[in-house]
């Protein structure tokens, strides 16, 4: 999937994946897609919940070899 920017949050523990995702999203324009890579399992439900509360859209998420990937479209 196409993305505007990739954020590598691998190896970071909660709350850092979300803190960094929030910061990266703020730097993007509406409609841009941020791709996030994380290894903290808690990120899965937290990113989904955060995206929802911020009004953004989670286009897709995958999990492969312990790496969680998210594609978030900015509102």
């Amino acid at each position, binding site marked *: 999937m196409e993305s505007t920017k990739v954020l590598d949050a691998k190896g970071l*523990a*909660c*709350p850092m994946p979300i803190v960094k995702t929030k910061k990266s999203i703020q730097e993007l324009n509406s409609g841009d897609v941020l791709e996030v890579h994380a290894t903290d399992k808690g990120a899965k439900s937290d990113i989904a*919940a*955060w995206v929802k509360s911020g009004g953004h859209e989670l286009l897709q998420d995958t999990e492969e070899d312990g790496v969680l990937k998210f594609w978030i479209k900015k509102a």
Partner: protein
Amino acid sequence: MAVKHITTKEIARKVVTNEETTILDVRNTDEFDDWKIEGGSVHVINEPYFNLLDGIEDVEHKLDKDQEIIVVCAKGGSSQMVAEMFDEAGFTDVYSLEGGMKAWSEHLEPTKIADLNGGGSLYQFVRLGKGCLSYFIESDGEAAIVDANRMIDVYEKFAEEKGVTIKHTIDTHLHADHISGGRNLAEKAGGTYHLPEKDATEVTYEYSSLEEGNDITVGNTTVKVQPLYSPGHTIGSTSLIIDDQYLLTGDILFVESIGRPDLAGKAEDWVGDLRNTLYSRYKELSDDLIVLPAHFSFSSELGEGGQVSARLGELYEKNKGLQVEDEEKFRSMVTDNLPPQPNAYEEIRKTNMGKVTPDDEEQREMEIGPNRCAVHE
């Protein structure tokens, strides 16, 4: 001022002593709704940490600046961050729970149930965060542990403190909600691991069959553990009568509910066994037996000092699962009201059979969440 930390042990104390406790749980709301710290005089507010990144205004008005606030998250990272924000905002008594809910899930609180014949004692280990109850019987330098949790070091340390050797570990059934520590404990201590044969058809290891008629002795023939076949939660489920006074019911009968028959995928087959055990086999026993179950589901089941127990006769009067004489009604109550299954229950069963051996971190993750071994209206 730096943020203070609090341990799961201190929180457990607060719960069992009914101390007024305010918790700010900053996990996401789905996880919070699924499972949280409860019991005693605990009040919990939920506000996910990611809603507080720009400031704590949304939640700070709900709390007083000088009250004690314990911030809790999944593993302790986000609670630390939020606690620091409260500290900076002028709150003076803020704590972050070390290790978060993951550590809470593993905390075991031992409590003495009774003195046994001939100088022995019976202890209940309450896993407050998950609702699991295990038992430690000691007499004359020997110990038996029933339905042990994965955190075997806690029992080993306890045995050392009491100066006793672990001779027997017993599982009343093949568990589906938590990973048993019975086999590991027995192996390390050179003791015997007992499991009902009918639950052990797929296991990959050696065990001693737990069956009616084969009493287990702890200490110098002083404490007798009598197995009583009582199927229903699983086909092999076996209860234990200790010292002719205490009935360890495993996952068959709880204080406010009864066991569920479906975790091995056989609800329809096993519901009849469950009914027979509850309405016939147990009824033949003395009303004065003290029921000691393997789980609790509600904080209201925690009695004085955090103990979970009740007289069998009292349960026949009050426990809703024991009031349904009509067989069809019982059947539908048990099969229509099944709660969601415990987290990773199939993987947990395979682990307890010895078919898979996840690493420590995976085992921790598998056990996160409530036990959900009961059915209730």
